[in-house]
């Protein structure tokens, strides 16, 4: 029996979403098996995860808080991945964004008592500029010197981490703790619970304005990628750089711009997290949002709209990590989902063909093994 992959001639529209759902299902089954293997009850675990993330308005609100940075970092990755730029530095750009926003109130760059309607936009800009600058470094290195962006973005993550530590252990440290002083309250992003006086149902709900940032960013990115000239160029470069060059597109310039925007989106995620949730700069503000964003972007097939949903799913998993102790389980599920997604990617392009028995070979030919799958390039072979 031989198993071969054959290129698909047509891809039905339902195939891609079906494969994504299939991949998640397979991942849950595998994870369930592992949970059972170590003596857990997979069904109970999943029910627990569901209840802990979607079971009530309160936990749903918590899930959305976790999803907010994932939406923005997921969009950052999706944009870069569209162009086949493997920006795995959203984590670092997130941290720099948080640092840039913090710098506005911690240096401070503005006088104390600056009102929120000035302070918050200022911190947004600072976060996006800092994150964008962090994205520019690998962008320029790749565009000018051809340096592999996977290596540089990965390494810059660590530098960003130590950069944050340098400040929170050093001059921004509050009384020697590894955290800054709290931001002034007018820098905090409004939360639903802030309106509890008017709408009692909002009491205790921590969903903040960052979610709106994420939704607006997703809508803008959709417009940008699917409807703009620039988005068309990015699609073209991503699919065939040589065709893009032929069409007169300056790939290097686009690459730098995409990296800067990608970094700015991740930077905005960092700003939204410190201003909306943490309210200070401290070590460990990210449980790996920038890395989870890679999976989110993959799950969403790099489409901005789907990023929102994938981010909510993964926000739930992060939240469940707090509930299920020891917390390795949700991280494992995330990893397995990414794995199955990447594997099923092949099936969008290829179909599996299983042939029973050996392909027709000369029957009395012990020295001539069955013909291997000859490279399927007859046209190329027809050359003289």
């Amino acid at each position, binding site marked *: 029996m031989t198993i071969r992959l054959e290129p698909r001639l047509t891809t039905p529209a339902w195939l891609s979403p079906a494969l994504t759902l299939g991949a998640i299902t397979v991942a849950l089954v595998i994870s369930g098996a592992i949970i059972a293997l170590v003596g857990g009850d997979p069904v109970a675990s999943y029910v627990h995860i569901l209840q802990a993330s979607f079971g009530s308005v309160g936990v749903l609100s918590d899930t959305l808080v976790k999803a907010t940075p994932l939406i923005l970092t997921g969009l950052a990755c999706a944009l870069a991945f569209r162009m086949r730029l493997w920006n795995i530095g959203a984590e670092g750009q997130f941290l720099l964004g948080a640092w840039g926003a913090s710098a506005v109130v911690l240096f401070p760059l503005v006088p104390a008592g600056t009102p929120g309607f000035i302070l918050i936009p200022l911190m947004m800009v600072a976060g996006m500029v800092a994150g964008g600058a962090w994205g520019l470094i690998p962008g320029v290195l790749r565009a000018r010197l051809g340096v592999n962006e996977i290596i540089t973005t990965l390494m810059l993550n660590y530098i960003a981490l130590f950069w944050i530590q340098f400040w929170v252990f050093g001059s921004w440290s509050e009384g020697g703790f590894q955290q800054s002083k709290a931001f002034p309250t007018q820098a905090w992003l409004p939360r639903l619970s802030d309106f509890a006086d008017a709408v009692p149902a909002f009491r205790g709900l921590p969903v903040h304005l960052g979610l709106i940032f994420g939704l607006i960013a997703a809508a803008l990115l959709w417009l940008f990628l699917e409807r703009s000239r620039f988005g068309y160029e990015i699609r073209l470069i991503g699919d065939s750089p040589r065709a893009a060059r032929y069409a007169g597109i300056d790939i290097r310039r686009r690459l730098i711009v995409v990296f800067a925007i990608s970094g700015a989106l991740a930077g905005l995620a960092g700003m939204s997290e410190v201003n909306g949730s943490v309210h200070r700069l401290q070590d460990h503000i990210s449980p790996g949002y920038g890395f989870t964003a890679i999976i989110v972007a993959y799950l969403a097939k790099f489409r901005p709209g789907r990023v929102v949903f994938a981010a909510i799913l993964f926000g739930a998993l992060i939240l469940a990590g707090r509930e299920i102790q020891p917390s390795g389980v949700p991280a494992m599920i995330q990893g397995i989902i990414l794995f199955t997604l990447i594997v099923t990617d092949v099936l969008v392009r290829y179909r599996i063909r299983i042939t029973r028995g050996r392909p027709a070979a000369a029957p009395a030919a012990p020295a001539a093994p069955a013909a291997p799958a000859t490279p399927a390039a007859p046209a190329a*072979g027809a050359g003289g």
Partner: protein
Amino acid sequence: MIDSLDPPNLDQGGAPTTPPLAVEARGIVKEFPGVLANDRVDFGLRRGEVHALLGENGAGKSTLMNILDGLYRPDAGELWVEGVPVSFGSPRDAIAAGLGMVHQHFTLVPSQTVTENILLGLDRPRFLLRERRSEAEVAALAERFGMRVDPRAPVWQLSVGEQQRVEILKMLYRGARILIMDEPTAVLAPQEADDLFATLRSMTAEGRSVVFISHKLGEVLAIADRVTVMRRGKVTAAGLPTAGATKADLARLMVGRSVLESLDRPPSSPGEVVLSVRGVSTTNDRGLAALRDVSLDVRAGEIVGIAAVAGNGQSELAEVVTGLRPCTGEILVGGEPVANRSAATVIRKGVAHVPEDRTSVGSSPNLSLTDNLIMKRYRNAPVARGWLLDDASARALADGLRERYRIVAPTVDTEVRLLSGGNLQRAILAREIETKPGLLIAVQPTRGLDVGAIESVHRLLIDMRTNGTAILLISEELDEILALADRVEVMYEGRFVGSFPASEAEIGRMGLLMTGGTETDDTASPEASAATAGRLEP
């Protein structure tokens, strides 16, 4: 079909002549969808000879050799190696029978050393590498055949010529007695080619045999003892001794007499110069000289055909004109300099380009037909609406082109990788023609298309010319150039070596110049030609 490796004494019926040839192929047939690549091909390689296999691109040379190497299985026909009937399932079987092929594109691991590359894939040594010993073996083998190569050097440090030596050593180390070399000189500098020839001679002196695939006549006459010429899947001369042959004979055999299609072609009335190339030089992707100080004019309403065998600089000429390759010298389009400007600048100057590689340069395979059809127009209204794209007008444009140029695709949303070659080419032509260019660079516009498609492409080009477009047509199909061009320029090794008005262009002379011959080679005495001709059909 034959069953392989029957004991020779059981199968004397079809046994080849004695003494057995190193390789004998009889009646090989191989068909690819739409192409009969080998049509009852016979081929005989004697022990200790260099046998050239000559033919144009697409003549079926590589197909035949890939069959000998076990990469393809023939649809019909028989193979013998040293008197033993064989049937190869893979190159591994071929090398076991003493037959090794060196492909044009090397298969080496850059980070590994020469010796490691040579040992790669071998069963011995079984477990532990004894590098010193293997290195000594490789060095001795290289020494024996006069190849200079350091067995310990990592492959990435080697020149192309040295890498080719490693490929040859790989085959010799595996015990190849018969070496097939697929256009070995295409990647080599002249000095490296001379070194290669010396190596090949030292191999034949030991009784090994070499098949040398080429389309350069000078080379074939210099290195080969005999030559087999193929044209359109058939052998036109089998085992012709090179001693009595002239370049002119070979060129005629290779290019053949053409049956010109009758195209309704109104007389041209060339206008002013649209493209002017002045003293342009450039290098190819490997850094070797590709264009050497070439100059050329193309006028409005004129088709200038560039006739050249692949790899003689014509692709690079198209690239420097369209802004895809840097160069030295001057290029003017409509009187304005475009050399070393961006491709976008050249497009804005009204230059359209049908590129040689239609699947990865001329189109973006996973994008829709619409996306591919707006590639040259998305910057301008009505497709562009400010910084946005107007989806509706893009689709309207695509629908219009699909209709008018009869592009067969289910919808304009179909990804173009699903289109047939002819339809894809029509889509590219539609896109380029509809930009209403002042200058069109068309490279191999009909390669791989069927007869009907070729004719429709030719009509489109003639119509454009009649409407005043200057066209630079680059093609390896001499028939096509003769059918379309008002003027023919022949290119060889990066230079223009001959220029003919359409009325005086003659396929034999062009073929000769294209393959490195000179006009004087054509003046062989009638008797000599007749004598050679007599030997063509044994």
